[in-house]
């Protein structure tokens, strides 16, 4: 096409991966060139992460050969893959929680400006590491993170940015981004997309996995669609309309779900929060009616998660009152909340939701154990049927209920967690980034489940960084900033601008707050 020769960055031939009898990836031939952002889309469990794992050496392919920048990759050697120039931002970002941010950023390598001598190769250059870590963070647009603090003290979005910076620091040929924006707010997400563009401009290849199709359209130079492990479409940006992508992913036409919340009938107030304070939160006043879906928007660190956790009783409250179902509610443990009929889907799947080594069945029944037991005794048949129902309702894709949940794809894990709580039939559901990593089809399905539950009287409080999501499903959006609600916007006032300005805590935000209050 152009006069410069197109350089191939990645070449895959006959690559496949099977787990047991199931082939989860099967790619006869694929070439990626430098200077392009290639988006990979597909349903949950389509094999996207597996493909990235194969490229980055973390997954050993069953068959096939891979070349990175013309050199062959030995299967299952992450270190070699890295040396060849592949950097992966994994879906479950693997950071060493107890090590400092700086050390995590330079994990497995030395500062670039370190000398080549034996001394420099062996002796840990603390100052250099710190300096380079700061520079890296600045490069990806994160400022003010103390690089000496252990990573485990930072919330998920910051960790996600650290993970991106870590990959960026390798100056890779191939930069793989596996759902890098799923836990980020719109502004940070935009930063990440800019990084991807910059990398492609500089002659690198970018592989971008995402379930937010608008992002995919905004950034991709080429779109690959995976379905059950096979490459089913290779689209140019022009071809890659949202409908087209969905059709290719699902294999059939998807009726655009009706993304409006159920018309709210006047019902009793389910949750009423007054002057609620906790560490880094409040004071918060908030009401949620039965059958109402209330969104919580805000920038990262604005206290959305804390609000949900404090209501749940997972974080100690320092003041204020909560009235739930007309009664004063003072949970001292999440167990109290569960008993009262509250459920929480936390934002960090791996740390806060899953029993990674245990079966899907155990995971989906975790919150309903007492309910499905008869006088404390679990009946295997009922247990299995119950789990099967949850799995089926949520359309979790798996081989068997008994496989460890960590073997599921990220999106399917999220669906399993969701299923756990819907099965508990709570009266109030607290959702923290509920559809993180869930594919479009399943998302619509989850929204549908939320809607129908709301119709039956479930009150829902959703914290999400994805504004579209909130705008689709919520009756009302509360915007938080610095631990307090600064605006309360009813559905007819929805607009990205309004929410963002309020979240940024500017005067416009204050105005919106006033306006919101006036309307409420």
């Amino acid at each position, binding site marked *: 096409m152009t006069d410069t020769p197109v350089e191939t960055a990645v070449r895959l031939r006959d690559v496949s991966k099977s*787990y*047991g*009898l*199931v082939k989860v990836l099967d790619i006869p031939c694929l070439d990626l060139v430098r200077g392009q952002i290639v988006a990979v889309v597909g*349903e949950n469990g389509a094999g996207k992460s597996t493909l990235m794992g194969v490229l980055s050496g973390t997954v050993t392919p069953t068959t096939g050969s891979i070349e990175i920048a013309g050199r062959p990759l030995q299967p299952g050697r992450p270190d070699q893959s890295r040396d060849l120039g592949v950097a992966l931002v994994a879906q479950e970002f693997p950071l060493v929680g107890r090590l400092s941010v700086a050390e995590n950023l330079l994990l497995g390598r030395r500062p670039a400006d370190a000398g080549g001598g034996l001394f420099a190769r062996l002796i840990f250059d603390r100052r250099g590491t710190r300096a380079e870590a700061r520079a890296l963070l600045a490069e990806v647009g994160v400022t003010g993170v103390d690089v000496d603090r252990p990573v485990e003290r930072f919330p998920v979005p910051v960790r996600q940015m650290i993970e991106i910076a870590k990959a960026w620091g390798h100056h890779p040929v191939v930069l793989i981004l596996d759902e890098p924006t799923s836990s980020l707010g719109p502004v940070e997400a935009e930063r990440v997309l800019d990084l991807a563009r910059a990398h492609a401009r500089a002659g690198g290849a970018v592989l971008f996995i995402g379930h937010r199709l608008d992002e995919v359209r905004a950034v991709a130079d080429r779109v690959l669609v995976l379905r*059950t492990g096979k490459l089913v479409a290779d689209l140019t940006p022009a071809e890659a309309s949202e409908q087209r992508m969905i059709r290719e992913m*699902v*294999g*059939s*036409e*998807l*009726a655009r779900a009706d993304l409006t919340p159920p018309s709210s009938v006047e019902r009793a107030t389910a949750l009423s929060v007054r002057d609620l304070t906790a560490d880094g939160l409040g004071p918060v006043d908030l009401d949620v009616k039965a059958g109402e879906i209330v969104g919580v928007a805000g920038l990262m660190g604005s206290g959305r998660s804390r609000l949900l956790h404090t209501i*749940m009783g*997972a974080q100690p409250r320092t003041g204020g009152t909560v009235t739930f179902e007309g009664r004063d509610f003072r949970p001292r*443990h*999440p*167990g109290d*909340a*569960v*008993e009262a009929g509250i459920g*929480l889907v*936390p934002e960090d799947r791996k*740390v*806060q*939701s*899953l*029993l*990674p*080594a*245990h079966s899907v069945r*155990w995971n989906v*029944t*975790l*919150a309903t*154990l*007492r309910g*499905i*037991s008869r006088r*404390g*005794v*679990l*009946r*295997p048949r009922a247990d299995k049927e119950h789990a099967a129902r949850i*799995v*089926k309702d949520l*359309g*979790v*894709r*798996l*081989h*068997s*209920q*008994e*496989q460890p949940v960590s073997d599921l794809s990220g999106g399917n894990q999220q669906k399993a967690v969701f299923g*756990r709580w819907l099965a508990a039939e709570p009266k109030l559901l607290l959702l923290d980034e509920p559809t993180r990593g869930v594919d479009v*089809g*399943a998302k*619509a*399905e989850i929204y549908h489940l939320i809607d129908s539950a709301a119709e039956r009287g479930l009150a829902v409080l959703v914290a999400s960084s994805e504004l579209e999501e909130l705008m689709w499903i919520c009756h009302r959006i509360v915007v938080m900033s610095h631990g307090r609600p600064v605006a309360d916007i009813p559905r007819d006032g929805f607009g990205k601008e309004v929410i963002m300005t309020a979240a940024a805590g500017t005067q416009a935000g204050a105005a919106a707050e006033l306006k919101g209050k006036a309307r409420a």
Partner: protein
Amino acid sequence: MTTSTAAVKARGDAEGGGRATLARRLLETPEVGVVAACVVVFVALALDKSTFAGAVNLQGMGFDLAQYGLIAIGESLVILTGGIDLSVGALLGTSVILMSWFNVRAGLPPVLAIVLTLAITGAVGLIHGLAVTRLKMPPFVVTLVTYTVAQGVTLAITSGTSIIGIGGTFSNLGQTYVAQVPLPLIVFAVVAAVAWFFLERTYAGRQVYAVGGNPEAARLAGIRGDRRVVSMYVTSSLLSGFAGIFVLGRMGVGSASGVGVGWELSAIAAAVIGGVSLVGGQGRIVGIVAGTILLELINNGLTTLQINSNYTNIVLGCVLGLAITADRLRARSVAKRS
């Protein structure tokens, strides 16, 4: 529409799993290795030495098994929660002494002596549990303290002199046969069955696994993990005291000679050999029991075969090493093929 497609696929996949043959299933069960090892060792010993599989020796092994098995189960329950209990053995020794002391020196009837001792061991377990959950102290250190103190208490009570003249109730408990099966063995079987039922069939048992597997996830799912953890420590200590009854009954004397000290290592080993993960949240009763049986078979076999005592430890270690290595190789080949 989407959903239905996915669901259909899921079902297809699930059936794919279900089609696996029984043999394959068996091979994939983690406990199969240790159970197989038990069978192999047993058959080999029985062929080599006819007296090994004789009723008398089997009965003898039954008594041993009950002692070690009871504390191995207690130990495993604690390990499942993600902790460890170093005190099971020392506490057993102390409870032997406490029971004899209450019975002989304090002149209490045996039943009362047993009840008091169990109350004390239960209290010790409670302290363990609270220290671990409330004070967030490392279980290793908490139970190490008890390990040390318990030995000290034994010595302080006895000054090294065994307590003789214990009531007949004890030897009734410790030495009776029911239809030629030692009573302690029956009790052990019952305890194992109860533990199995608890872990596999009650929601509380499932919650124990959840707490051991991911405490934070369990907490946010509304599980009161602390209660589960505390109750497992209490159970472990109670089982130590309980095993102490049979040890005392069998020996007929409150021996001050470090009975039980070091048994925690056997208990942990039995658990680990049986597939219990020291990280917590993983392992099943059948494996634990098989692990205990394997250790007992090896130990008894060494005596039966009249191995030169200079080499028993070497042989013991090697057999253990072989059994575990074989199991790992099996697990690896399963992992490879999947």
